[in-house]
């Protein structure tokens, strides 16, 4: 008896120790995961938050006929050919009469985005009545100036110090603009209203977002109905034989195929064989459909399986046909699970890059796509492109784009969770 008590005490001690150890393993794993996520988020946010503001410089421009070589009767064609470059340069030069050195004058122009003359021209094209008047304008600053003004302005540089890619002359100019109150930071709308650009200050992700949406639209329209039909057929109608077993195994295998291979497949089938254009959301959507189908099929089948057999029996016992049983009872009960699987599949597709590179969705595209057959890029590819760009200002753009992509992903995944909570029925 005594012996039993001591043995019990010993095993109990060991068991308790094992339990405590196990709990600590769990806590450590969770802590590690949380730390990784926190690190990722702080890194991205600290790098990327700057991209959500943008430096602008106020400037007074007189659209005078003489410099532009226009008359009040000039046509649109004339305006397009007019020398807005000279107008802009004259205007800037006139503000600094003391600067006569050519190189230093070029630095003056370089405070502003290189597209400044084009912006002036576009302004006249939009509203010819500005010709001959003087306008108070706000023009985007050059990316180097922008980076300097946002992140290093006002810091002590030490003797003859140079920050990033700005030189002492530029620093003095920015200081002067600042004292005049002509330089300021505003929320960066360009990021959301422009397509890609070689100039960081003009580059936006609108094109990529629309491209992603169009691509996902194609993916959703194809993969959801196909996957649901497949799942229903396999679960409820298909006979259980070698062939269906083979199909089942293959669907599971398909889910494990690296996505880049779907890209190659898409290239071979849709572009080379069917002759669809490269770089378009239509082909991107088709490729991502191949990739998301297994995910949605597997989750749909799981949620169909989860519908209690008693509900099926009840329906059949009432004389419902098999299709009625599925449509009236199984599908409504399985739908939340199917939708959740679909959203998760879509989130995967949204973040997918490799297969899209294969089908040429990696091109430099300025225009926002308007149709699924327009050349386009997508968010993750845009991130890839920007991360690859040498300009310093693209670093924060890259992080900003990652933040936006993550925001979309978090939104989609929480929608999935909400949907599951909301539609879940108990029986």
């Amino acid at each position, binding site marked *: 008896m005594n012996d039993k008590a001591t043995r019990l005490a010993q095993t109990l001690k060991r068991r308790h120790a094992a339990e405590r150890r196990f709990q600590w393993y769990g806590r450590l794993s969770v802590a590690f995961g949380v730390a990784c996520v926190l690190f990722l988020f702080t890194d991205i946010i600290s790098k990327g938050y700057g991209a959500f503001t943008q430096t602008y410089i106020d400037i007074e421009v007189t659209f005078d006929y003489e410099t532009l070589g226009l008359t009040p009767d000039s046509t649109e064609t004339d305006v397009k050919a007019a020398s807005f470059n000279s107008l802009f340069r004259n205007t800037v030069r006139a503000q600094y009469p003391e600067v006569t050195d050519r190189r230093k004058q070029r630095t003056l122009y370089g405070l502003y985005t290189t597209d400044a003359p084009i912006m002036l021209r576009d302004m006249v094209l939009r509203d010819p009545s500005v010709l001959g008047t003087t306008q108070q304008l706000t023009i985007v600053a050059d990316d180097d100036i922008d980076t300097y003004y946002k992140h290093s302005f006002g810091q002590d540089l030490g003797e003859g110090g140079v920050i990033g890619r700005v030189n002492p002359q530029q620093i003095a100019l920015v200081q002067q603009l600042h004292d005049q109150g002509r330089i300021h930071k505003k929320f960066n709308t360009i990021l959301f209203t422009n397509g890609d650009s070689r100039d960081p200050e003009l580059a936006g992700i609108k094109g990529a977002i629309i491209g992603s949406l169009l691509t996902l639209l194609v993916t959703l329209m194809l993969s959801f109905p196909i996957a649901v039909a497949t799942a229903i057929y396999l679960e409820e109608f298909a*006979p*259980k034989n070698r062939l269906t077993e083979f199909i089942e195994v293959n669907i599971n295998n398909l889910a494990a195929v690296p996505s880049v291979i779907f890209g190659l497949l898409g290239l071979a089938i849709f572009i080379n064989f069917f002759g669809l254009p490269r770089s378009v959301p239509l082909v991107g959507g088709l490729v991502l459909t191949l990739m998301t189908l297994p995910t949605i099929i597997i989750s749909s089948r799981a949620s169909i399986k989860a519908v209690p057999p008693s509900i099926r029996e009840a329906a*059949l*016992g*009432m*004389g419902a046909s098999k299709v009625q049983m599925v449509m009236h*009872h199984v599908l409504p009960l399985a739908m939340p699970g199917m939708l959740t699987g679909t959203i998760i599949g879509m989130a995967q597709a949204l973040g997918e890059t490799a297969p899209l590179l294969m089908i040429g969705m990696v091109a430099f595209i300025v225009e926002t796509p308007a149709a699924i057959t327009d050349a386009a890029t997508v968010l993750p590819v845009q991130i890839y492109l920007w991360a690859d760009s040498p300009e310093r200002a693209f670093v924060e753009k890259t992080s900003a784009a990652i933040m936006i992509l993550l925001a979309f992903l978090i939104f989609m995944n929480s929608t999935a969770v909400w949907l599951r909570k909301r539609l879940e029925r108990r029986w």
Partner: protein
Amino acid sequence: MAENSKQTMNDTYETTGIPLLKDSKLSVRNVDVFYGDKQAIFDVNLDIGKNQVISMIGPSGCGKSTFLRCLNRMNDTIDICNVTGEIKLEDQNIYDRSIDVVELRARVGMVFQKPNPFPKSIYENVAYGARIHGLTDNKLELDELVESSLKRCGLWKEVKERLLEPATGLSGGQQQRLCIARAIAVNPEVILMDEPCSALDPIATATVEELIHELSQNFTICIVTHSMQQAARVSQRTAYFHLGKLIEVNDTSVVFTNPKHQLTEEYITGRIG
């Protein structure tokens, strides 16, 4: 009664008692049922009288459910299940090619062991059969049908205020009566019940038994039960199954007071579980 005068079980056997009737609603002849290679029902011959309650008793796994499910072809839904022989519903072989199971199940309804209302409203549950079979012409008729079906099951008073609430919110006994209401709403000729009270408490059981008794005025009812008291209370005839064979069929009072077959006697005296 001498022990050796009773029949014992052979491979070829004959059902003791009175399995066949002159006038029957359902007549079952030479029915064998197989699950794959395994035979679950052996050569059953049985007539079921019109507007009678017949109960099927027997030890677990003896094939009561399997037999019951032959009568509305629910066994069709099991891939490996194979039924041979002939089952006639008023002179029509229900396994005939020309018979559509949808039509058959509208004539032979079923109530299951575990209450299985659809996760929809009480109203929708009762209205479902009428909807899929197109039994009513308008909403008014459908409302009336729902009301009368619930009334016949004694459920109307309890649920009339909450017809649009989910049926899954009802108690177990109410759910089972709702399932019966759902079954009778399509006005079937036969109702099959597979241990309808086994998931219910004694009070709910008593209510359902009373209901079965009332329904027997208008419907032919086949009920599988584990409780011999229940069989004695609700049925006019009783069939005893053993290892897939129909051992004995007779008037309920005869089966319980004066069983002719040794196995039946052993079962009702509690020697076979």
